[in-house]
């Protein structure tokens, strides 16, 4: 058991090292960085990215990719906005429809790419445009201000300064890791990503598994919509543009393979934290925009490199 614990620590040691290093650097260079307020802000600003990264990890593991997540978030939050503002729906009702819509979009991505053997890259690229267009149609390209009715999910709680959105996101990470490592579904996902033909020839239907992974991502986009909408108190048709790249970056930093078959939800979560800490720290220092981009890119490469070195080193010693 002790050995297992050490092992699991080592598994994430590289990533955690990068995270701690980043926090240390920012704490030393900005006097207000190492404070609850800052850490809480980081935690509460990023649940949407966490939700999406959990689902994206699953999709990447089955050797798929979904570029439409940013648009799905915007679509989901537009659904919430339109239903609550124009039709006076309650939040739970509006959120249910939002989940239904984003879940169906995920299902569509998975179904079309699996059934017609079209690369999910292309299908989800199409969905990216469609969902964004749909968002603009239903909102008339106007930001919908909803107000305090949606804020609770994104606001810090009384007894702990974290938002329910963040806590739910952390629970999703735990559930995602459980799904991946402890269930038959997770095992099939990893197996399909490793060699789909071998899984098929083992007498397992791969299509429903792959489609389910895409659908789970769609549903998590719905949760991300709720968290984003409540943080902004409004539904913004331009929300989450480019979020897909941040999510993929977080997964890859966490060691998920774009070729499928390898990945960890917890590692992707740490990947999100690394990106978030970096963004927030650089903002507090007021670093030039161009320099910010340079540093962000460099840290992404460094984190992936460090992980690769750790794996290589581990293989040599093991």
């Amino acid at each position, binding site marked *: 058991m002790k050995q297992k614990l050490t092992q699991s620590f080592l598994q994430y040691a590289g990533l955690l090292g990068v995270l701690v290093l980043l926090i240390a650097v920012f704490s030393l260079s900005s006097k207000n960085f190492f404070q609850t307020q800052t850490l809480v802000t980081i935690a509460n600003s990023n649940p949407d990215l966490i939700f999406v990264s959990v689902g994206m990890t699953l999709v990447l593991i089955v050797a798929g990719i979904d570029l439409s997540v940013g648009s799905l978030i915007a679509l989901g939050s537009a659904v919430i906005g339109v239903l609550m503002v124009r039709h006076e729906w309650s939040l739970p009702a509006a959120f249910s429809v939002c989940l239904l819509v984003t879940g169906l979009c995920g299902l569509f991505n998975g179904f079309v790419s699996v059934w017609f053997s079209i690369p999910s890259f292309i299908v989800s690229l199409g969905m990216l445009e469609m969902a964004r267009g749909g968002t603009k149609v239903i909102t008339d390209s106007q930001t919908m201000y909803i107000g305090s009715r949606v804020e609770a999910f994104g606001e810090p709680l009384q007894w702990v300064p974290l938002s329910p959105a963040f806590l739910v996101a952390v629970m999703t990470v735990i559930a995602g890791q459980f799904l991946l490592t402890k269930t*038959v579904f997770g*095992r099939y996902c*990893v197996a399909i990503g*490793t060699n789909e033909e071998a*899984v098929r*020839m*083992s007498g*397992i239907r791969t299509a429903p598994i792959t489609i389910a992974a895409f659908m789970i991502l769609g549903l998590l986009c719905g949760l991300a919509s709720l968290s984003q909408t409540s943080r902004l108190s409004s539904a913004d048709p331009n929300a989450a543009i480019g979020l897909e790249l941040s999510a993929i970056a977080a997964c890859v930093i966490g060691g998920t393979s774009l070729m499928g*078959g390898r990945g960890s939800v917890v590692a992707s979560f740490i990947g999100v934290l690394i990106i978030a800490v970096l963004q927030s720290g650089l903002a507090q220092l007021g670093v030039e925009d161009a320099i910010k981009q340079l540093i962000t890119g460099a840290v992404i490469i460094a984190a992936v490199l460090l992980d690769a070195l750790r794996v290589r080193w581990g293989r040599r010693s093991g």
Partner: protein
Amino acid sequence: MTKRYGNVTVLRDVDFDLRSGEIHALLGANGAGKSTLCKMIAGLTEVTAGGMRIEGDVYAPHHKQAAESTGVQIIQQELNLIPTLNVAENLLLNRLPSFAGIVSSRTLHRQARAALDRLQLDDVDTYALVSQLGVGHRQMVEIAAALARECKILILDEPTAALSGSETQLLFDQLSQLRDRGVGMIYISHRLDEVKQIADRVTVLRDGRHVGTETAESMSTDQMVQRMSGEVADERSDEQPDAETRQRATTSAVSADESDRRNDSTVLTVEALCCGMVRDVSFQVRGGETFGIAGLVGSGRTELLRAIFGADRAESGQVCVAGKAPTRFGHPSQAVAAGLAMVTEDRKQNGLLLQQSIRCNTSLSAMIKRFSRFGLIRPAREATVAGQMCRAMETRCTGIEQSVGTLSGGNQQKVAIAKWLTRDADVFLFDEPTRGIDVGARRRIYELFDELASAGKGIVIVSSDLDELMETCDRIAVMSAGRLVETRERSLWTEDAILQASFAGHRTKESQRLTGT
């Protein structure tokens, strides 16, 4: 021109000479070393010992380009054309006429036209994409591409497999012209009638050895088959170094074989199955029976197993497993549910998860049935069974967490088999179960056949290794050109007879074709 080789494992001390202006046919059963010989000549593999000379000069090509620059061209069975380019571009791909990197389209198509005209391929447009051509035309274009380059030696590996009768005739006319121009040609084919028709001399290889070279006229097709299978059995076996070990390895199987374990229940019935090149195949396997399928490479054996297993959708016919209602499986999952298991030919491509652990691979097919409850994996049981399987199969590994990709071929195969043993199947299909694995693993796998048969399972083995089939099977069927041509009890077969039967489909097809035109 003379070429010499020596002491290559698949090819031993083969002397072979090719004269200019002759068509020299190369014959042999599966694995006799025909392809290896040609690959060495074409510079695709290196010669281990021995050497070659062309027109008296030492010739030692290290890669295909070197061989081509010396004037040696090979046309392989797999087509090497790029489907998205047009005919002209394919024909002249490695020497596109260009000025400063800009391809001159007019020159290109003029040269391509000339190359096609030589083969009288008037109906092939040089602007057509290769993907728009039929298989026969593609083959012809490939031959034209080889002929377009100046060559002294041309190697053709089964060039007529995809050609129609008239196309074949056209090709033969071209080959005759080339012969008149002094080009030496090596011609590989399973169609013995064709060989009779076109070849000047015939060399027969068997088990990597040179059996004999004679003029084509002096040999009948029956004699060719006899040469390939070997008239004098003793001559062969006492010289084979690993024959003894193999014999010893399988004594247990052979001795157990004495008592017939076959029972009366039929566990697998295949009826009039058709799928692609597989035509109208029917057979039955009884409980405890080991059923072998022999045949030439490309005779449709793998396709047959895939069709039975539902990996490819069969067009017609029925499969019935262990008394269940007869059906045609549309997906392997249905076949597995009915009680079939299949160990595939290419374990890396579609048998194993190479990057995953032995544990994951072993539990894969029986995941839901044995290793989970309410969708949750039961890790303890999974690890226990994986460990048991490793011990039972004598898999050499550092532990059940070792990734399968790092195992040796034989141990990988043991894991691929263990994957099915965890699931209680009624019929096991094995496609080339011992290809490329060591003697120890082979011994263990033969023992396993024995154990499965004793447990009343049905076993179907496809193998190109005739010794293997003769040693392990109760009955052997021979497949030729997509049909099962003959099925007999093992004791009623000789290797010679199996080989004769293997060519049966080709010969009937050929004679049909000749009478038809």
